[in-house]
């Protein structure tokens, strides 16, 4: 029960980091007696708006820079503490039992052919889901967007897109490499070149008005090799 702990950090983390952050929280508590992490996982946008409305969060881990910028503009984060913790990549996946040959994702490649006559491409909604936004940018840069934009199945979040492919409802999907890595029901059939979309960064920062000192301690921990190892285990790209 949190009441007894000396310090209890409330960590608002993007839902896509759920497993990594859960493990890291346990690790952090084990290494630092008297300190605890209580995570709250939801979409980056929801969390950002909650912080804007005065949520008692101490640390915010966003799945994209836009919502971190949103809070920075409103002075709701300790800007000095902000850094990009993780990187991710967009991959093209197909159901594990799919017979589809690997696709070389290069300028001018045609996704439509791979989708068949009535298949759809499962994506996080490119209007607002970060994975979808990155995917759209990449497809635009590769000149393939026009061919597929009417063949999308835009989902509420990237996890839903993954499910759609897992179930075979969509023959292809665009998800994070981290999502693809953890699901045994899909396989990666193509990886997007790094330069086809803006870097997929997971910025983290202490929340203004929170327990800044304790937050700094935790943020420091996130940079340690043991924390990195956890992130890498779940397929994240940890760069400085």
């Amino acid at each position, binding site marked *: 029960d949190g009441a007894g702990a000396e310090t209890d950090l409330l960590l608002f983390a993007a839902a896509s980091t759920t497993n990594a952050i859960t493990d890291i929280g346990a690790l952090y508590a084990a290494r630092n007696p008297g300190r605890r992490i209580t995570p709250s996982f939801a*979409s980056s*946008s929801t969390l950002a708006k909650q912080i804007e409305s005065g949520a008692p969060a101490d640390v915010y881990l966003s799945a994209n820079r*836009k*919502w971190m910028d*949103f809070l920075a503009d409103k002075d709701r984060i300790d800007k000095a503490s902000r850094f990009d913790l993780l990187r991710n990549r967009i991959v093209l996946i197909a159901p594990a039992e799919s017979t589809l040959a690997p696709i070389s994702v290069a300028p001018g490649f045609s996704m439509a052919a791979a989708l068949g006559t009535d298949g*759809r491409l*499962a994506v996080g*909604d490119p*209007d*607002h*889901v970060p994975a979808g936004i990155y995917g759209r940018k990449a497809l635009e840069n590769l000149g393939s967007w026009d061919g597929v934009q009417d063949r*999308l*199945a*835009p*989902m*509420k979040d990237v996890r*839903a897109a993954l*499910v*759609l492919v897992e*179930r*075979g*409802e969509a023959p292809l999907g665009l998800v994070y490499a981290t999502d693809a890595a953890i699901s045994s029901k899909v396989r990666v059939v193509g990886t997007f070149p790094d330069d086809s979309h803006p870097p997929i960064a997971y910025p983290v920062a202490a929340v203004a008005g929170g327990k800044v000192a304790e937050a700094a301690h935790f943020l420091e921990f996130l940079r340690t090799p043991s924390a990195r190892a956890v992130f890498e285990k779940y397929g994240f790209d940890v760069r400085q």
Partner: protein
Amino acid sequence: MTLFHLTAVELAALKLSLWVSGWAVAASLPAGILAAWVLARLRFPGKNLLDGMLHLPLVLPPVVIGYLLLVMLGRNGIIGGALDRYLGVVLAFNWKGAALAAAVMAFPLLVRAVRLSLEGVDQGLEDAARTLGAGPLRVFFTVTLPLMVPGIITGVILAFARSLGEFGATITFVSNIRGQTQTLPLALYTLTQVPDGEAGAMRLCILSVLIAMAALVCSEILARRFAARMEG
């Protein structure tokens, strides 16, 4: 006012919402009345189970229901596959699927309200109609059903409102495809997820409310007319 200058996308979402909700309610009404009747009038083993199943869409998060629908009614689903193969009916990624999702989510509300009013129908009146020569089916349609009107109106309005607002199951089951499955709540949700979407979101909010109000006023008028008929 700019409120009523809807973009093409918004207009499409509005139309789709009405269409989907209308179908969801219309198609589930007979089943709802049947279910209400079965639950109110029959006694059979497993009744509690059936009752519980009907309430599932309320108890589980909509996304979960959407997921279950996907698993069962998706093209690779147990039922969905059969539907596709034998009837050529595809529910995934089109408005029919959206209507189904809405109907499933609204079903418990419909059934409960209808059942409540059915339980209030004086069986003495049904008996009287029987002695006048009407068989059970005729009695149901000429006596029981008319006397259930208040509950049916309530059930329909609840179901319609719930369908209009249905989001989680819909987006999970049939995705958020503009013009095909993007109903008002899905469009609205999209707007709330982007930093500068607030104005648009507010507009769609108000629009939803207006539709609901219109539906409510209609239902009130219907109900009042019915009550007036009863009082003669």
